[in-house]
């Protein structure tokens, strides 16, 4: 029997006014003309709810770029889902947000690139920071859950304490501090984004202290930088185990980056029922469970905990999607990660000649 999915990540568009240097979208994006219409998304949400999904994450690109966002929110809520909007905020204003809340929006996750304007605009590749400050204060007054998401890396970790203070002053309920994960655009900028070991150690200690200080007042969730870990992250909670992602054109993927794995075909909600795609499509079956595992994962005591780590990372760093995630210290591929970290830690601060995310046509 297939596991039950709990979350649907709906990339409703790849269009975005920001050009973040660590964007998790694939390098090859879906064009506006290929985007599913709202009625089609509504059917997907209701099929997802029938499969057992509880959380709907409306993301992109910038989901607010969709003129019919309110219909998407209503459809998600009508399907019985918890509706989360993952946004840069650009394109949002108080009236539009109130209408989204009235349509059933449960939660807003607003991204910040930094607490200082100049670097924030540099990382976003656009002048967005000043507007985000206004929006954060406005959102905090609305009857909707509010999380501030801050992606951290070599260029802003020195200001992490000030970033947390900024979030505290806005009056958010929760902060997500996520170290960059190296896929898509972030991989292209890895040498400029990867923190030093010292930064990593300081950030882990700072977050632990701040979690203690803000206990009961503000929740901090933390994603550590996985290249520095001993064991891999339980990527997506296991392949095809709890999450599914639908891209703007309706292709269904087990994660954001799965397109980098050669030989996988992603079925489309326009041709197949979501339940079939989840339960039976070759792409979801490929790395579900443990059958595909090689050593050292196959016989490892941790295999039910981390599922061998990330298939996409194994592909990107070792060329074999079925290998153990090379961040694992038990993996033969770990030497690749060690070499990357050695280079990062022996270099001066890198020149920030960014590869900026481009917008689809």
């Amino acid at each position, binding site marked *: 029997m297939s596991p*039950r999915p*709990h979350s649907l990540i709906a990339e409703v568009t790849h269009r975005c006014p920001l050009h973040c240097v660590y964007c998790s979208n694939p390098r090859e994006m879906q064009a506006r003309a290929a985007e599913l219409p709202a009625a089609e998304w509504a059917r997907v949400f209701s099929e997802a709810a029938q499969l057992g999904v*509880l959380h709907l994450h409306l993301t992109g690109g910038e989901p607010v770029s969709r003129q019919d966002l309110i219909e998407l929110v209503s459809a998600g809520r009508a399907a019985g889902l*918890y509706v989360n909007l993952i946004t840069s905020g650009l394109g949002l204003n108080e009236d539009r947000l109130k209408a989204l809340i009235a349509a059933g929006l*449960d939660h807003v996750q607003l991204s910040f690139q930094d607490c200082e304007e100049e670097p924030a605009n540099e990382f976003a590749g656009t002048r967005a920071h000043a507007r985000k400050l206004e929006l954060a204060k406005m959102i905090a007054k609305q009857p909707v859950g509010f*999380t501030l998401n801050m992606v951290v890396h070599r260029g802003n970790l020195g200001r992490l304490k000030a970033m947390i203070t900024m979030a505290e002053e806005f009056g958010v*309920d*929760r902060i997500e501090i996520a170290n960059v994960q190296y896929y898509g655009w972030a991989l292209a900028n890895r040498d400029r984004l990867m923190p030093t070991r010292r930064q990593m150690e300081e950030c882990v200690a700072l977050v632990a202290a701040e979690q203690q200080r803000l206990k*009961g007042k503000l929740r901090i969730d933390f994603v550590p930088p996985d290249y520095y870990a001993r064991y891999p992250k339980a990527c997506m909670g296991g392949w095809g185990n709890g999450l599914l992602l639908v891209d703007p054109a309706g292709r269904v993927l087990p994660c954001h980056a799965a397109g980098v794995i050669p030989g996988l075909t992603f079925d489309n909600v326009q041709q197949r029922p979501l339940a079939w795609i989840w339960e039976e499509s070759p792409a979801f079956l490929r790395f579900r469970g443990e059958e595909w595992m090689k050593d050292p994962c196959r016989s490892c005591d941790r295999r039910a905990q981390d599922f061998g780590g990330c298939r996409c990372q194994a592909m990107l760093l070792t060329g074999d999607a079925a290998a153990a995630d090379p961040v694992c210290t038990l993996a033969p591929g770990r030497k690749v990660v060690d070499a990357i970290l050695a280079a990062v830690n022996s270099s001066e601060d890198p020149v920030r000649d960014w590869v900026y995310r481009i917008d689809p046509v």
Partner: protein
Amino acid sequence: MNLGSVPRLGRGCRLAEDNLQGWILLIPEGVLRLSGPGPHILQRCDGVRTVGQIVEELESVFPGAEAGVIATETTAFLEQLMERRVVIE
């Protein structure tokens, strides 16, 4: 938290009934499965009732419970959720 506190659900937290899992609490980072008196307590966390009133009402829902137990357990349950900001005063 004491018997005079007036609890309510935090922003972005919502009770729901799931076909497979019964009463659940949807929260920003996931789902809490509720059992026993859990749903009865949270349905009454409306920003109007005090903990004392909630306890009184629960005593009539669970008439067999020993005196004092419901008050202790309800307070402990709510305090635990307050730490996660799922319930606020």
